[in-house]
């Protein structure tokens, strides 16, 4: 099995897909609008390049990023894709390796979109404010976005294996939560909108609350567990052949 070739094709299929390009374009336009419309003024009288403002920017961009991630996940569960995988299941390919390659390609596509959101903001900071201290911003951004992304990825795999429509329902839930700004407890805060809340209660030094960090840890553990489960799962139809051999 030539893993590199399969990974190359999986990347090509994602990066050249209409839904990816469209959502990426929308995300870029939205990020630019956020930078010019709110980031430039700073959040809660802090600098535009403060961690508070950057996290506020990312929590707004997160909605579209997560929708893009779920749309990429949903692609894996179309009838055509499922039937193509049926052919692969009768070949000598190790399905766990194949799935890991597919998941890695999806992760690359999402990380590219996330990196663009970061990059656009950093270019903006550099050009407008000549600010280049991006280290602490990257750290805060990764804590804000990666754990819920892992969780949503795992949840999409769980739901998609049942029915593709369930992934779209999850996508709709994410859209509704984001569009209507529905407030969730810190530990369940998907988009990280609660991060800037302490700023308005007089806290000046940027920190993540313990409840928020615990939530991020739970998202990471649940997401990674689900992803590993679905990578190791024997087959889409769960053939008992290998299962019996193991037992």
């Amino acid at each position, binding site marked *: *099995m*030539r*893993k590199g*070739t*399969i990974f190359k*094709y999986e990347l*090509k*299929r994602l990066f*050249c*897909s209409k839904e990816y390009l469209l959502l990426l374009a929308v995300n870029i336009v939205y990020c630019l609008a956020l930078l010019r419309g709110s980031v430039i003024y700073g959040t809660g009288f802090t600098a535009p390049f403060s961690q508070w403002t950057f996290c506020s920017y990312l929590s707004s961009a997160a909605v579209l990023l997560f929708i893009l991630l779920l749309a990429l996940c949903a692609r894996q569960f179309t*009838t*055509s*894709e*499922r*039937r*193509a*995988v*049926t*052919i*692969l*299941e*009768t*070949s*000598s*390919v190790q399905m766990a390796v*194949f799935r890991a390659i597919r998941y890695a390609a999806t992760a690359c596509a999402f990380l590219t979109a996330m990196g663009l959101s970061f990059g656009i903001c950093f270019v903006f900071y550099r050009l407008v404010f000549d600010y280049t201290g991006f280290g602490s911003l990257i750290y805060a951004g990764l804590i804000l976005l990666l754990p819920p992304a892992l969780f949503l990825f795992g949840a999409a795999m769980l739901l998609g294996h049942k029915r593709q429509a369930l992934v779209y329902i999850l996508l709709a839930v994410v859209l509704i939560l984001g569009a209507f700004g529905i407030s969730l407890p810190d530990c369940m805060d998907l988009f990280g909108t609660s991060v800037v809340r302490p700023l308005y209660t007089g806290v000046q030094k940027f920190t993540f609350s313990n409840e928020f960090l615990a939530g991020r840890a739970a998202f990471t553990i649940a997401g990674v567990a689900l992803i590993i489960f679905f990578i190791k799962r024997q*087959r889409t*139809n769960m*053939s*008992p*052949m*290998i299962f*019996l*051999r193991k037992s």
Partner: protein
Amino acid sequence: MKIELKHLSKTYPHGKAALKNIDLTLASPSLIGLVGPNGAGKSTLMKLLTANLLPTSGEILKDGSPLIKQEKELKSGLGYLPQEFGLFEDLTTTQFLDYMAAIKCPDKKTAKDEIDRVIALTHLQDKQKAKIRTLSGGQKQRVGIAQSLLGDPELLIFDEPTVGLDPAERFAFRNLFAETAKNRLVILSTHIIEDVQPACDHLVVLNGGEILYTGTPESLMAEKHAATLENAYMALVNGRASA
């Protein structure tokens, strides 16, 4: 290669007995036509042969050893075209075959040679660079057949391979299957009886999960005093002594 089915039965969890006590030996080189009405158990038998299902009772032996112990070996030498298959429609024909060759062929050079070979065999030269989504149903069927031929497998299993092909294409593929079966085992599941007579040297008729007939198409016609295989088949399925 020799595949033996011994007292093979398959009952699905909801209680439907798809196969009942099947005894059958399939040996290469041979082109075996597996025919039967809808619900006869053909697809279940295909899934058992491709190790996608486990039998409820009985066993399948490949060259004398249980299939369950050599699933990987079986699959490394298996070319399979399911009845309902999907293709990565956003890739071109060559890209899709390259994707599949990445699984079946160890290196790029072998893969390229194999892709060229199966493209020529399936007459897809003029569609090499076309996106699969732009191909007609018959052309997609040809891509499906092409992927199953990659890696020169010793066992080929085709489930309704000629569906969607025009008469000329069906004729060409019948010849291809016959040619391919000269040095390997090819199992052709079909409900198109005309595909069986000119191509297959052995016929297995399934009905209600049981084998009704196994032998050559000619001997079935002789047995049923029929002028055509279709008449002989109909007499067999309907339980008549002669056509």
